[in-house]
């Protein structure tokens, strides 16, 4: 792995928050006592990333640093520490595939293969049309519905190769597939509906 500083990325010359985001940023800063405004660095970086096509250019980090009166290097440290910040441009649909043990046991390798086959790129790459990016991440915390892909802010769960391909097709068509389990189960309830507490037999014989 290498940090973003190794790879040359075309950086925009400047960055400024939109008026709406600026207001949100001010609200975040206002949550902290005076002189502690640096605490707002994470929400501000997140705002900046959302405003800037899901990646953080250096100008945005500098703008956040200046806004919070922090040394720029301190913001670079934060932004490079958290994997949720993208320091290079990513596709419109940013695929984060979980390959940690539970997902792996439930077939995440097949999900990765399906993505690579369907998109013609490997992990860490972006399609030439700028629509899709693939990354491999550690546990996303939804192991009950493994395997999972996080696409931008949405989780798609209970995937297999075919479901992954259907997901990609739908995104290509410009649809917005419903997040959650692709098998249609309710949140993380058992497959095929409830299997316990289906009747009140446990309560029989009780006063």
């Amino acid at each position, binding site marked *: *792995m*290498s*940090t973003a*500083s*190794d790879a040359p990325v075309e950086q925009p010359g*400047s960055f400024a928050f939109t008026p709406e985001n600026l207001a949100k940023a001010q609200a975040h800063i206002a949550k902290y006592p005076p002189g502690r405004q640096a605490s707002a660095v994470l929400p501000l970086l997140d705002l900046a990333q959302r405003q800037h096509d899901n990646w953080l250019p*250096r100008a945005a980090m500098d703008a956040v640093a200046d806004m919070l009166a922090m*040394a*720029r*290097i*301190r913001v*670079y*440290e934060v932004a*490079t*520490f958290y994997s949720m910040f993208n320091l290079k441009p990513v596709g419109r649909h940013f695929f984060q595939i979980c390959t940690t043990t539970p997902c792996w046991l439930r077939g995440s390798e097949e999900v990765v293969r399906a993505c690579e086959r369907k998109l013609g790129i490997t992990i860490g790459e972006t399609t030439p049309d700028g629509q899709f990016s693939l990354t491999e991440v550690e546990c996303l915390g939804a192991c009950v519905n493994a395997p999972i892909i996080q696409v931008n802010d949405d989780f798609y769960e209970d995937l297999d190769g075919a479901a992954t391909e259907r997901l990609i097709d739908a995104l290509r068509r410009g649809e917005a597939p419903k997040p959650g389990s692709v098998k249609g189960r309710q949140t993380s309830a058992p497959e095929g509906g409830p299997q316990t507490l289906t009747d009140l037999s446990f309560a029989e014989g009780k006063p």
Partner: protein
Amino acid sequence: MPKLTINGIAVEVPVGTTVLQACQQAGVEVAHFCFHERLAIAGNCRMCLVEQEKAPKPIASCAMPVAEGMVIHTDSDKAKKARHGVMEFLLINHPLDCPICDQGGECDLQDQAMAYGFDRGRFLENKRAVKDKDFGPLVATSMTRCIHCTRCVRFLTDVAGVEELGATGRGESMEIGTYIERALTSELSANIIDLCPVGALTSKPYAFSARPWELRKTESVDVLDAVGSNIRIDSRGPQVLRVLPRLNEDVNEEWISDKTRFAVDGLTRRRLDRPYVRRDGKLVEAEWSEAFAFIAGRLKGVPGGRMAAIAGDLVDCEAMLALKELMAALGSANLDCRQDGAALDPGCRAGYLFNTTIAGIGQADACLLIGTNPRREAPILNARLRKRWLQGGFKPAAIGPAVDLTFPVAMLGTGPGALLALVEGKHEWWSTLQTAKNPMLILGQGALTRPDGTAILALARQLAERAGMVRDGWNGFNLLHRAAARVGGLDLGFVPGPGGRGTAGILGGCESGEIEIVYLLGADEIDARRLGQAFVIYQGHHGDAGAHRADVVLPGAAYTEKDATYVNTEGRVQLGRRAVFPPGDAREDWKILRALSDALGCKLPYDSLPQLRKRMLVANQVFAGLDEATPAPWGAFGTAGPIDAAPFVYPIADFYRTDPVSRASPTMAACAAAMGAETRQKTGTHG
């Protein structure tokens, strides 16, 4: 005070001491990398793990404060196993390149791996490799060797006050760097070379020059600014290879400025290694006897009143005393050690000293800087001011053009107007000064080298008196010198005698022809064009401005080549020691003057350094108190007069080239170029 037991030894230490420091006090060594007593505690190398009884696991002793009744074992099986494990982890990614590493022989990791390490590795996977960074012309990097102790990051952030270095990425991909490729912009940046416990940060100019065991180490003092930083000169054969800081809590703690450290490569360049005599407009090589005969011939019949002497910035006290007495023997009262023409008053010692002392800054709670940029004039002193500011409850203010001192300073004005308003109590900052318990002011050379310098000196004295800066046990009046020779010169009375001329008078006399002979003792900062038709004798070590204009050049010794006395800006008398011999025919300066006096028929009454030093004691008792800053009695100095409203101009424009040694140094030239580029880049890209 908590009592604890360390390896069976009972110790009592103050509250807030860490276990590691308590161990050191008990005489027990604890291996460590990230801990440094002058930096914030990080606790990230884990090397200092020790066993604490009743604790579930080994504790990081550097980050654990002592508590009553602790029982610590540093040599138990548990502690040893923990250290062993940490060392093995540290070495997983550390390359085994000691034979080609510049840190070899003075490497903490190497030493501790020998002491606590495993004799083979069990890690069979690939080691990680990290791209090297470019930190500018002074610090070479080999980042694969880095063990992420973050000492360099903490030093630059806290001590140097430039937040440019950080740890980016995390886990396996964590790297120390600037993220954006850039040179470090601190005057103290090279101290991170000393701090680095491994070979990740090494000295670029000294790269692959020598191994530490080949070097002869000489304890001396620095003369490139007036702080008098304590240094160790490492030399091999005839050459000074590097300079390192030496611990002195009262002066430089354990830091030195980049100029002090790296200007020494100027000591082998542009040197005057034999006498020269000007014949038919050209300087030609000569023998000592020839040069002396030439001078004697020219001086014959010239009355003392038509001779003059100016001493430069790097000159030692012995040479100044010898020259003063030679001039007296020749009947001349025209001599001055203030070649910049600063209005320093030699009459009252407290009027030209940094009376608070450098360590005394720690007690101050308000500080007014007048016409001085300490970051350039004395970076070590500036670091002390910053240290004081970090402790809180310190109100700094400045009169002069705005500069970045690495801590926020209230700007009261650019010229003497603000000073006048303060003295009259009309300025709003006056109340801060009045309510401060230990107020201090620092008067810089930028305020005194003006035509109204003596009036400003008087005004500053008035302010010090009105604001209660001078009382028993506290003197807040400070003069910040920038030349190592200045205080010594004033202490020896190297100033115009009765009816004599000062620097301005001498130069004016040269132009009008009233002064025929000028003796420049290492004086290079004067305007050589103003020497007119005078016969110029230049004694010094570098072919700089003075030597170019000279009619006779007498090659002297640089500060690394003589046993000599210097007095720093606090009035602290310190000894420099000879590390190498002067090149070629060059000689120690007082010996040249002693030999010349013989040739001129007015032999100076000393044949050895001890005799000369006894003579210095007669001239001024302060030379008896070595390494001490003796408080000077307060008195009157400066002359009130009209004040010019023009803003102050700081004396140093280019920090890296201020004297003949640093001007001859290629490393300093590279620094000046790099920093110039940095400034240009800043104006271009910083919105």
